[in-house]
């Protein structure tokens, strides 16, 4: 195996006296698609947010794309984190598009501000990315006029504009109407097929089964088990995984998925 692109050792995080992440060890190989599942409150989102320094970790070491985020329990200074974040894309449950900027300006903001890419060049790249997510015709619109699925696709394009080495998805489809989930998952599938390294927190079990190289099951701040989807979904070793999957399955059946 080659050098891992994400390496996590002994990661710890708590909110006050509540321990959210307990001693997490994990690593991700380049081009791997890792899907993180688990009951709500299990620490999945916090785990993801520790990888680009949005959350302050209290223990352990995290190295992403060669940049240390936490080293021996010490957070790196903000200036170092800024350099890392420019190489790690993040997509949020609530999209967080910038409502005062047009769709295209949302995408070109970071490349023009941080990398000094000339405006015209950034716009051409922005339009290419919009085409990729099927929203070229929305370039001049403002986010307020888009549907949830369109917003999330723009958010993905915005993250891709910085040519990230790793993409983090924090429940990207959880805020969407059911009929809009598919269009966002399709964009993510395309990205995975292109070899993008992705870490995805999601409740979409079908997507996990189909696209993931590795499925990670989290509960109570720990990794319960991890492995290829074929193993996790058909022959889970842990009782907690089984009970979680049963709940999810019941839900999907109930929703006719």
């Amino acid at each position, binding site marked *: 195996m080659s050098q891992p692109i994400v390496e996590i050792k002994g990661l710890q995080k708590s909110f006050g006296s509540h321990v959210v992440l307990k001693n997490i060890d994990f690593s991700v190989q380049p081009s791997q698609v890792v899907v993180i599942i688990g009951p709500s409150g299990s620490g999945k989102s916090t785990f993801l947010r520790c990888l680009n320094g949005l959350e302050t970790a209290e223990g352990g070491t995290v190295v992403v794309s060669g940049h240390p985020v936490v080293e021996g329990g010490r957070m790196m200074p903000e200036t170092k984190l800024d350099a890392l974040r420019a190489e790690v894309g993040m997509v949020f449950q609530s999209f967080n598009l910038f409502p005062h900027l047009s769709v295209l300006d949302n995408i070109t903001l970071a490349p023009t*501000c941080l990398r000094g890419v000339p405006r015209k060049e950034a716009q051409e790249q922005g339009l290419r990315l919009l085409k990729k997510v099927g929203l070229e015709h929305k370039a001049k619109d403002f986010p307020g006029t888009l549907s949830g699925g369109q917003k999330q696709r723009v958010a993905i394009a915005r993250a891709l504009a910085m040519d990230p080495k790793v993409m983090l998805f924090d429940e990207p489809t959880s805020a969407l109407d059911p009929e809009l989930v598919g269009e966002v998952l399709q964009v993510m599938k395309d990205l995975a097929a292109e070899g993008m390294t992705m870490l995805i927190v999601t409740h979409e079990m079908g997507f996990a089964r189909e696209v993931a190289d590795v499925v990670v099951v989290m509960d109570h701040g720990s990794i319960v088990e991890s492995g290829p989807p074929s193993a996790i979904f058909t022959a889970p070793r842990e009782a907690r995984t089984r009970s979680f999957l049963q709940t999810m399955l019941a839900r999907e059946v109930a929703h006719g998925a």
Partner: protein
Amino acid sequence: MNLDFSGVWDSWPALFHGTLVTVEITAASLVLGCVLGLLVGLGRLNPQRRFIYGICTVYLTLVRGTPLLVQLFLWFFGLPHLGLLLPAYVCGILGLGIYSGAYVSEIVRGSIQSIERGQMEAARSLGLPYRMAMRRVILPQAFVRMIPPLGNEFIALIKNSALVSLLTIADLMHEGEKIISVTYRSLETYLAIAVIYLVLTSATTLVLRRIEKVLRSEGRV
């Protein structure tokens, strides 16, 4: 009752000049107040930065907690005792501007903190440093939300500026007093002055409404 506006009418050049002075003083202190308010508002965003937060909080507490008239008198009558004799105009602008800045700072802080946390997180996740994220993402959105409370503050400032007449500044209020001392027509003169202040405040309201409408157009915030 017998209203006679002829005395007021005859002194229109004085009233006109006084109005100009009021507009000048208000405009200058408004700019000072906004600059101060922006800096202090930003300075009070993060209590962990103790020094800056502390200074800004002391300023806010002192300025907001004492009467404007007392502050103006301190500038004008108090400072000379420390050997610092500032022109009345400067005292008026400093006094009003510093007073207004305290209120503006809370407007700035409140508007910034009302922007969803996800906006800053999204900007930082793209790699924008804090200041750049503030300037390019947060402040443009917060600015739109500042306009209604800023309108209140600007109107209060225009009206409060009448106090500088007590510092021998020949503003609208001061010119009115002079007219009364000659004509003894208090009712008519104060009515005329009130109307002029009303015109000034209404114009301010209209301009701000215009700005807000433009900023909110095109499906933005």
